């Protein structure tokens, strides 16, 4: 079988002592009934990804004033590469904000699924996480899902980018 693939104009560089891991937490807030999403990524990787795909210069965008255009690109990138589905229904999430880590290396991005349907009859949660797989072969993405009485810890790699949690199997 021959697969078609597209070229995306891009620069690619792999610095030597850089190791590629992202951390995402899905935390269900029982008070606000919303799913709070916190994503930690290396600022450098995010810049590279946005720059490569959209030919946008976003270097140092944290230091400058809000830039709605760049924010839009970031939101689009995450909506395309981090997909959270409940019983195969893709959940839309809203932009909350971003902030730099204290060590300047990472950026935290905040999204939210308001009115998250916490139906008892939910059978499965499916997460597809392809953050930066287009940049690095050795990318590892870690996701922690914190529901009211259960926690799930998932690892995504280029060979394993979709994971399903079956809700009747409440193991930690």
């Amino acid at each position: 079988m021959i697969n078609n693939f597209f070229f995306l104009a891009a620069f690619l560089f792999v610095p030597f002592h850089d190791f590629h891991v992202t951390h995402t937490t899905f935390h269900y807030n029982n008070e606000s009934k919303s799913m709070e999403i916190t994503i930690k990524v290396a600022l450098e990787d995010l810049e590279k990804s946005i720059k490569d795909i959209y030919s946008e210069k976003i270097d140092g965008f944290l230091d400058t004033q809000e830039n709605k255009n760049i924010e839009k690109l970031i939101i689009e990138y995450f909506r395309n590469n981090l997909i959270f589905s409940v019983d195969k229904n893709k959940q839309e999430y809203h932009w909350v904000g971003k902030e730099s880590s204290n060590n300047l290396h990472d950026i935290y991005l905040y999204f939210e699924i308001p009115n998250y349907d916490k139906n008892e009859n939910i059978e499965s949660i499916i997460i597809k996480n392809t953050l930066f797989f287009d940049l690095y072969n050795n990318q590892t993405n870690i996701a922690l899902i914190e529901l009211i009485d259960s926690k799930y810890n998932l690892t995504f790699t280029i060979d394993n980018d979709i994971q399903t949690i079956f809700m009747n199997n409440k193991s930690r």
Partner: protein
Amino acid sequence: MIFNCKKINFTILILLTTSLLMGQENLNKSKFKQLHQELPTPNVYRTASGAPGHEYYQQKADYIIDVELDEKNNILSGNETITYTNNSPDILNYLWVQLDQNVRAKNSHSQLTSTSRMTKKMRFGSIRRMHDKMNFDGGFKLEEVTDMYGKKLQYIVNETMMRIELPKPLIKEQTFSFKIKYYYNINDRMKIGGRSGYEYFEEDDNSIYTIAQFFPRMAVYNEVEGWQNKQFLGRGEFSLPFGDYKVSITVPADHIVAATGELKNTSSVLEKKQIKRLEIAKRNYTDPVIIVNQNEAVENEKTKSESKKTWIFEAKNVRDFGWASSRKFIWDAMAVDISGKRVMAYSYYPKEGNPLWEQYSTRVVAHSLKVYSKYTIDYIYPQATSVHAKWIGMEYPMISFNFGRPEKDGTYSKRTKYGMIGVIIHEVGHNFFPMIINSDERQWTWMDEGLNTFVQYLAEQEFERNYPSRRGPPANIIEYMKGEKSGIVPIMTNSESVLQFGNNAYGKPATALNILRETIMGRELFDYAFKTYSQRWAFKHPTPADFFRTMEDASAVDLDWFWRGWFYTNDHVDISLDEVNWYQINTGNPDIENPIAKENEKNQNTYIGDTKNEISIPKTVTEYDEDAIDFYTTFDPYNISILDREDYSDYIKNLDDSEKQILNSDKNYYELQFSNIGGLVMPIILEFIYVDGTRKTIRIPAEIWKKNSNSVKKVFILEKELSKVILDPFLETADTDRNNNYWPTKNEPTRFQLFKQKEKNSENQMQRTRKVEERLQNDK
């Protein structure tokens, strides 16, 4: 019959397996069990104290190398003489030589074993890189391998390793010299990456060459691994013996060369004014002196010399050699005082590195040498060099290649600045680990990266208060340690199999050492032990056991549990404060205790039926019929009789003074219950906050878990009543879940919630400011 027989065998087998399993369950699984099974048996080469033994030996490899850079074709050709000395008691029949460049050879194992895949959307860059890698004709091209008389030696190349047959066996204290003539194509770092190679600058048609692994190098032979000839796959770095080097580097005459060691033919390669400036720099201990300034470098890069110059460097007792060459180099230097001895700090960078490099590089080199010398051993090499190299940070003896490039308009982000300072500290720091304290990188990445990252953290904090360090503080490792266990391997894992390299080999060991220093051993004991390890193993080849043992040997702190937990498992820290129970002494004095007991009974919850009956039954029989009353109807158990008082005074009489004191002390007894959810045993650090608002810190060593590592109780006798208890109040144990660290229970807000709160607050702040402005206008 046959059938029966089988059946019996099967039963026996089951019996055997079950008893085996049961046997395993009954083994000592204490988290405080000593590491006798994990660590190698001490011997005459390596002692149980962690010091080198009386028969310790190491091999020596001396090099005389002549190389020439062909700038037009990006080819490096070389001629080397290796003199190998066998100091081992063993007889060697062959030698193993490392051909690291072969990692870039077509169809190398490194390329074959790295996984790759196609996706529907591929970036141009990814495809181009795959093409570039595939098309690059890398690897050493060996032309001649001969003895000193030109006689060919038999050899075989197995990927990145070459076995040379010795004409006759090499016995103890014998030396064998041989020559290798070779060349290789230098890789374009921007296209296919690499620890070394060149970066091409299109604007002025020049390159910066950062050259390393450029000559066939001797492998290490010792009593730990035999020949360390594990193939170079790209991640597990290097394992190299010490030796003396004389390297002659021939480059275009207008290049400036930086290298390991000392320049020996200054007058024939440097201009007079440069030599003069260098002399001034040697006396300047406060700030860098420019040897080649930016104007001169810019002028220099405009033309290309057709003639050549040979730079000769010598280095004593180093394990490797690296160099850099370009006509783009600006060069500055300053002197550093290390315990009264002068060491030179050098930086080489193109105009593209400024203004950052001129201001910081050499200063940071000097700072790193001072801090590392304080915590390990005095830096004894004559110089330390930082060379500007986009995207990478890579270390060699006395020379390192470091990133940090400002924007073209000369501005730079905060991240670029601190990234550059951090990488220079780190790579200069590698002079100590592993260049001097020469651990086996091919086997254990953490031994150099982890230890180095730890001292890097100390150096960063001494560079600027609250320096934004990436690795070191326990809080920074939590995200990694609480991750899914299949994505985490113990620190004690071979370099090539490590998952999450940065966290595993850099972050976690650096944090572990920081925790030892701040929480478990204390600074004084830790610093002495860490320095002892550095002194014992400087210019030698340490193993993990030598480090583990020395840290204990020099401090009298049993750390086996710590090494076992933090280095041999992927457990994490999550200690939970489950319960706080408050007790006060029953004095036995009826005049005190009876009213209390009565009050307690009154305060107990009442059954609903009883409450209703109070109203619905106006009078019971005993209430309206006096004849129904007897002794028990009116008896009050809390009434105090003369006999009760007599009993009490008899009881008091039998107590001695100290017992009486306890009885009347009016203390509060708090029983705290902890459980260990994460698996790692750690000290329990508590902050007591009393009802009057005062605070007290309690530090309990990890050995509280020695008999039960799952759950423990501890009683505290306190003068005052408690209002709050906080577990790990100073964020020092990397506890991954802090929601179970409080009494009364308190959930720490998540980062998300904090951010949202902050957003709200900042809006209020704006509204507030606006209100202030409006008020001011109205007042006018």
